């Protein structure tokens, strides 16, 4: 239950957006941060959380998490998956429009937001469809979708094969200041493919998805972004070459940003040996060289956000010969720990790493989430930087248990999550 007033005492408050990193108290009232440091006059917290030894950071903002509701509730529900998000320190998440029905009408967007409000443990922002039915032919009613609370529009990973339709869709979205989230994939090159076209696809006899499937589409979409001036965000880069192309376009002033799925920073095509269905993801895992380039791009800021790319599945979806398995990883509960792993491995410092999962993704959405400021909503994550743990099915909250990270030792673990000042996750030490 929500305490009206709450103090988080003696935590290391780390807010990358404001360059704040010090041990200090936070005082919350009615879901908002009302003071940093000394409590306001007459402040009487109903609860005091002793955050000694913990890092207090903004609640994580995840640009891509499939909750599977409506339409695929056997894989996950808004209730189950937002509970998993809370356990992972995530307080805001975007769900892509490829639900069933598709988020191409205000009614579906409102249904998701309403359900998230009544049963959810995190804020859910539905991403609207860029084209009707995601069919890639007719642009959607984006103004209405924006009214209904969609912060961005996207065609998820369905193709818009007609470049003219894509151009018009980007222009129309820009009319309403909506960010267009694009998945760079040339479907004529990727259709039928399962894994990165390279050493492992050749050895395992699995149809490949070439690097060019990503770079060809990225080149086209960057050209459209440059021509139209529309704000575009590229979802889930997977190749070294794509990061170079993006950095080059950005240096010329193209309004393009990009994110990466967190698993791409850890896994490579080598994880597919033995036909490991839990490493079956789209876009596919690529080479160690690609992984290292993606890490470098996240560190430099060329890639400004890290996503969970959460895709929960029922067990049967992964229990089949590899080509019949569904792609995706249940990833909400390991996002923060993996990001902290990047810090431990020296890829980037803690502040930069946290920026990639807090204020940076919020900026891409043009929303003021992911910050610790007086007056801001109290979306907070408290974690122990040094706790070691191994993800295991016994304490997993997502309905999807499809993860290659079960059993892997991770460093850093969430202790408390607050959403709008409400404690939505709490775990004893």
């Amino acid at each position: 239950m929500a305490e009206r007033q709450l103090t988080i005492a003696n935590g290391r408050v780390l807010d990358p957006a404001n360059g704040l990193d010090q041990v200090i108290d936070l005082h919350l009232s009615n879901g908002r941060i009302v003071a940093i440091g000394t409590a306001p006059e007459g402040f009487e917290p109903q609860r005091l959380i002793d955050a000694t030894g913990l890092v207090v950071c903004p609640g994580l903002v995840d640009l891509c998490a499939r909750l599977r509701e409506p339409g695929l509730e056997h894989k996950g529900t808004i209730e189950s998956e937002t509970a998993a998000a809370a356990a992972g320190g995530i307080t805001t998440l975007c769900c892509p429009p490829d639900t069933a029905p598709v988020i191409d009408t205000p009614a579906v967007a409102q249904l998701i937001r309403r359900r998230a409000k009544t049963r959810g443990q995190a804020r859910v922002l539905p991403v609207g469809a860029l084209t009707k039915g995601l069919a890639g032919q007719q642009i959607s009613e984006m103004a209405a979708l924006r009214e209904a609370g969609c912060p961005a529009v996207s065609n998820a990973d369905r193709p818009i094969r007609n470049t003219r339709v894509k151009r018009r869709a980007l222009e129309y979205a820009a009319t309403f200041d909506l960010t267009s989230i694009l998945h760079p994939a040339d479907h004529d090159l990727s259709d039928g493919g399962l894994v990165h076209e390279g050493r492992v696809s050749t050895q395992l006899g699995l149809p490949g998805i070439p690097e060019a499937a990503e770079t060809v589409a990225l080149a086209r979409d960057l050209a459209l972004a440059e021509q139209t001036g529309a704000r575009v965000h590229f979802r889930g880069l997977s190749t070294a070459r794509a990061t170079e192309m993006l950095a080059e376009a950005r240096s010329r002033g193209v309004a393009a940003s990009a994110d990466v799925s967190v698993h791409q920073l850890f896994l490579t095509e080598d994880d597919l040996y033995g036909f490991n269905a839990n490493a079956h993801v789209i876009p596919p895992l690529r080479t160690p060289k690609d992984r290292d380039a993606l890490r470098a791009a996240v560190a430099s800021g060329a890639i400004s956000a890290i996503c969970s790319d959460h895709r929960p599945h029922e067990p049967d979806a992964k229990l089949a010969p590899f080509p019949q398995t569904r792609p995706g990883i249940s990833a909400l509960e390991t996002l923060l720990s993996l990001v902290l792993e990047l810090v431990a491995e020296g890829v980037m410092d803690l502040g930069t790493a946290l920026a990639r999962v807090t204020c940076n993704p919020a900026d891409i959405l043009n929303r003021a989430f992911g910050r610790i400021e007086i007056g801001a909503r109290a979306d907070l994550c408290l974690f122990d930087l040094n706790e070691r743990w191994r993800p295991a099915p016994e304490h997993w909250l997502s309905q999807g248990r499809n993860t290659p990270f079960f059993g892997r030792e991770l460093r850093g673990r969430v202790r408390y999550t607050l959403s709008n000042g409400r404690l939505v996750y709490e775990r004893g030490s």
Partner: protein
Amino acid sequence: MDPRQLQLDDEGRLKHFLTTDGLDRAVLTEILDRAEGFLSVSRQAVKKVPLCRGKIIANVFFENSTRTRTTFELAAKRLSADVLNVNIGTSATAKGETLLDTFRNLEAMNVDMFVVRHADSGAAQFIAEHAAPFVSVINAGDGSYAHPTQGMLDMFTIRRHKGAFEPLIAVIVGDVLHSRVARSQIGALRTLGAAEVRVVAPRTLIPAVAEEALGVRVFTKLDDGIRDADVIIMLRLQRERMNGAFLPSEHEYFHLFGLTEQRIQQAKPDAIVMHPGPINRGVEIDSSIADGPRSVILEQVSNGLAIRMAVMSMCIGTQNLALAHASRPAEALAPSPEAAQGAQHG
């Protein structure tokens, strides 16, 4: 799971035969040696041995096949096993039954060995990972990944003609990209120590980074590729490749990659010519070569029987040892670690 760990028991004995990957030279040589012994069975008046008597072997084919299924069936019968032929075709998944359910049903009939053909790469390995303890799986071809008994019967044919593998240059011509036969042949040739393995095809039919991934030399001109070859393996070209963007026409393919009397002059004079069948005469190979003195194509078929008997009897033998071990009173009948781990997948 690692294919070596899956295919061998703790003592290194063959339990499943899914791929040549991960198996060392000793295991492959044992298969060849044992097949040698079975060749004579076919020449006996009574063509049966009792090695698999009382065992049920099920041929479970999700893809159409007459030749491979027939040789597996005959091999099982010569080993005195009872044989079930389960033709599932492509309709089983349409009925909604999952692959595992299909196999659980067959396991309930106490089948001891599954011979599986499936259109998906990795299918045989998946079935082996989830098989009950004391059930063996033999891969009769899965997707573009492996067809290890075909690969080994080709090695057997080569060894009977050439003796040692070390001095050999072996050339595989054709659709390597889609060929499970080629992958198994390449794996076996390399493990058995062939001096050089080459592949020859237009670039549309050569898989990505083939040299690094498969340890072969890649040629796009047949004359260069078969120069000084000891063994020439022609792959079957499936008609559907003509319709896509892989090849423009059969005519052009034969013109550039068909094996003719003239081209074969580049190879060693005693080179042998192989083909896994069925042959497209005039597309991959000239009839005069297919029926000529260098061709060992029909021998491959009879050798296939011996290889399949060898592999089946080895896996059943490993099973019998495990069963005897498990039935000792002191030993608990625990599921194999493979089966237990498999169950945790997903």
